């Protein structure tokens, strides 16, 4: 089945958008680092900074997996083992990110108290719930792709 032109454009756009998300995340982290170091020499914020750096790794890897998934879809390989594997790994990345933020919660509460920023804890909670939502979505999509893969196998084995 050949790709229609419009679909390829959509996939390309989504790949670029995903890449941009990664770039924006890196820029924001860099800015945050400079702001924090400039403000107080970094000391109370150090654990938070380390936390953010740690979560960057699975985040960027997950974005790379999304691009790989999009490439699969564009190459008509949407319902394939590769896609299922990619979704499974995205799910694990999201769970790891959420676990990291849960572990970092006491540090964030400490900093939020010291800095008198009530929004700090709220942001942390958003991140935790958000990551879990992404993990759940990835797992749902994984099962959908699994079903699609089984349908396709049935289809291709029929004469």
């Amino acid at each position, binding site marked *: 089945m050949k790709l229609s032109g419009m*679909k390829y454009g*959509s996939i390309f756009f*989504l790949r670029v*958008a995903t890449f941009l998300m990664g770039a924006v995340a890196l820029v924001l982290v860099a800015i945050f680092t400079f702001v924090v170091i400039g403000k107080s020499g970094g000391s109370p914020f150090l654990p938070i900074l380390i936390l953010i750096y740690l979560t960057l790794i699975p985040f960027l890897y997950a974005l790379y997996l999304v691009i790989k998934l999009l490439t699969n879809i564009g190459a008509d390989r*949407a319902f394939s083992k590769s896609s299922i594997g990619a979704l499974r790994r995205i799910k694990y990345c999201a769970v790891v990110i959420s676990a990291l933020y849960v572990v970092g919660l006491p540090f964030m509460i400490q900093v939020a108290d010291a800095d008198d920023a009530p929004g700090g804890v709220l942001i942390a909670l958003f991140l935790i719930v958000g990551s*879990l939502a992404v993990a759940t979505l990835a797992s749902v999509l994984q099962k959908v792709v699994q*079903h*699609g893969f089984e*349908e396709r196998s049935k289809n291709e084995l*029929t004469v």
Partner: protein
Amino acid sequence: MKKSSTIFLQTVIVLIGIGTLAALLWEPQLEGRNVNATFFQIYFNDPFLAYVYLGSIPFFVALWKAHRILGYAGQNHIFTQTAVNALRTIKYCALITAGAIVAADTFLAIAARTNGEDAAGAVMLGLIATFISIVAATAAAVGEKLLQKAVDMKSENDLTV
């Protein structure tokens, strides 16, 4: 399909809807020019606010449709024409929302310019929101085509003896 996953996601969607609604209704209270106005003046004398409320309708429709699609996924009815149509609706809603935001942004930019104010921040927010809407529309479109293909495959399978 694990039902608990889809129910969790549906709950998240409901929370997003409630949060957005609350923010939409509460925001006028936070505006500086509304500090001394009466309730009627804040909510009913503002055409821009009415436009915003009207423009938020496609957003809530899209949220509702997404909630429904998750319901289908939970019941294993995901490879159905209904789900495909729901994704198409979400795509159109996202596009309409993007267009509405662009129009509102243009209005804001022009209005602020004539008042001598600088609307850079608000315009920037509008552009980011537009971008997010377009990404959502594209994702919905891609999902729609994929699901359509799967639905066609499935009906082919189901009709084969």
